[in-house]
């Protein structure tokens, strides 16, 4: 929010305080105006309550029940108390997957935001033709459906005649002849990271670049004349101005990457998915859906939702404040 908007709001508030209060008579028009917003939001609220609220309530109940394929057909489960939760929390694999997912998320978010910011800064340095080209490339990457991008990644990295192995060998990076990029859990997750970061960068570049336009040239130039090196200029001038943007980008990226499913699930592929490479989303899918142990799956879901809820508090609070102000 700009300062002029804020002072405008203050002026309005002052004006309202000065205006004499009087009770307006109850009229039909006022009544309509009073309930209008509720009628307008009603369809959305009802839809969300029915298709999301009810399942979420059901999820909480399921997590305390034994609910498998038999119960799905019989349509009711048997209460087991906290058994599902204690089974999950005592599962060594759950903790292993949780730690792996946190490390994976941190790596993905750091890489995407780091590279994205560098690219946004680069966009301010290049000539306009290169800027248009680079933006076009970013938009193409942004537009690729994740399922399609996975197939392209599989083709580019396939051990027999993938173009990546060919290029790396030709550039003398090393001998990558028939190198299998999915050989170890580490390389599987690294390949997934490359795919996710490639898809995530465009949004970050566009957002940071838009933010950079707000940083005044005078400030940067003044700092440069004072002898500040580029890193100092970024750290002490640019970054403080962009801080709110980075805060939102980071929390959004954390939430997205923590719950990621499509890319690792399709890239690592079914026979290779196991305890050594599962991320939280896939662990949940395997334990709850594929093993049709919906009660235990529900307990994992609740735990996952709680973790993400804690992670997203910063973002939600910030957005709600922005949305509430701009009415």
């Amino acid at each position: 929010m700009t300062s002029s908007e804020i002072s405008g709001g203050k002026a309005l508030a002052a004006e309202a305080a000065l205006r004499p209060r009087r009770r307006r008579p109850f009229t039909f028009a006022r009544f309509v105006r009073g309930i209008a917003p509720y009628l307008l939001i009603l369809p959305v609220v009802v839809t969300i309550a029915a298709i999301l609220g009810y399942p979420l309530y059901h999820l909480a109940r399921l997590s305390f029940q034994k609910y498998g394929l038999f119960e799905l057909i019989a349509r009711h489960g048997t209460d087991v108390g906290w058994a599902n939760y204690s089974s999950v929390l005592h599962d060594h694999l759950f903790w292993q997957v949780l730690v792996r997912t946190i490390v994976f998320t941190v790596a993905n978010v750091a890489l995407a935001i780091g590279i994205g910011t560098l690219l946004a800064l680069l966009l301010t340095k290049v000539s306009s033709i290169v800027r248009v080209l680079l933006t076009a490339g970013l938009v193409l990457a942004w537009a690729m459906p994740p399922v399609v991008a996975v197939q392209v990644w599989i083709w580019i990295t396939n051990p027999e005649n993938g173009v990546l192995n060919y290029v790396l060998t030709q550039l003398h990076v090393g001998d990558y002849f028939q190198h299998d990029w999915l050989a170890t859990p580490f390389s599987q997750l690294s390949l997934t990271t490359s795919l996710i970061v490639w898809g995530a960068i465009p949004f970050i570049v566009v957002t940071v670049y838009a933010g950079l336009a707000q940083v005044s040239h005078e400030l940067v130039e003044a700092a440069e004349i004072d002898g500040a090196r580029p890193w100092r200029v970024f750290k002490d001038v640019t970054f403080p101005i962009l801080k709110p943007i980075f805060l939102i980008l980071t929390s959004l990226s954390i939430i997205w990457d923590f719950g990621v499913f499509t890319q690792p699930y399709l890239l690592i592929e079914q026979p290779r998915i196991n305890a050594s490479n599962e991320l939280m989303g896939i662990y949940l899918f395997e334990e709850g859906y594929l093993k049709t142990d919906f009660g235990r799956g529900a307990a994992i879901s609740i735990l996952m939702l709680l973790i993400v809820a804690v992670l997203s508090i910063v973002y939600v609070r910030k957005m709600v404040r922005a949305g509430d102000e701009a009415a």
Partner: protein
Amino acid sequence: MRARRGRTRFVWDAIGLLLFVVIAFPVYWMVASAFKPDDELNGLTPTWFSLHPTLSHFRDAMNRPFFWDGVKNSVIVVSVTVALSMVLAFLAAVALAKFRFTGRKAFIVLIIGIQMLPQAGLIIPLYVVLARYHQVNALSGVIVTYMTFVLPFSVWVLRGFLLGIPKELEEAAMVDGSTRIGSFTRILLPLVAPGLVATSIFAFITTWNEYIFARILLNDQSKQTATVWLSYFTGTSRNTDWGGLMAGSTLIAVPVIVFFLIVQRKIAFGLTAGAVRG
């Protein structure tokens, strides 16, 4: 000084071009491979630009079982989801942008909060509840599921577009003697039309790209959407039909890329508006 500046600009440009190649390459390679004859695809030395392009892979992909079923299902799911969501979301966006009311903040929390829910966490409850109402293996089940994700986003973005309309225009229409509804249809709707188009296209892209719920809720191959069809393309055979796979990928990506290019600027604005204002 000038010469040095020119030289550093050249270095930045060179880095920029290199990065452009790296970033755009996967998309180029997908399209290029889709047009290559088999001997160029299967050779150990890649062909960077085919001089003998062929359409045979596209024919193969389209002739594969369930391709047209997938496209048809995707089109049905996407169009119904988008049409329903836009009407409902627009109403709610008007309420948020033009009215102050008790519970407004709670509604905003709901709208923002839902977008944070990890989809994987919702697989189990949605599957169990939809199974109970016989909505598993039915497109209607997928449509209502998608609506819960499209609605919050659309309400939020449309609200942004509505806020962009100057209040004076609306008030001018009211002074001219038109009713609130009259001012709405004649002044507000034409002004917000570009926003509606942009939001629908974004909703189109999200639904067209969606994978996990379509995979879980639709079991029959004839009921599956296009993305699920593509995910089953390679199957279990060792010898992948790379040309067909890339042709299928291109066919599924093209509508998204085209629409994305149309609305890219507007959506970047819609998404960042909240962030930049903060």
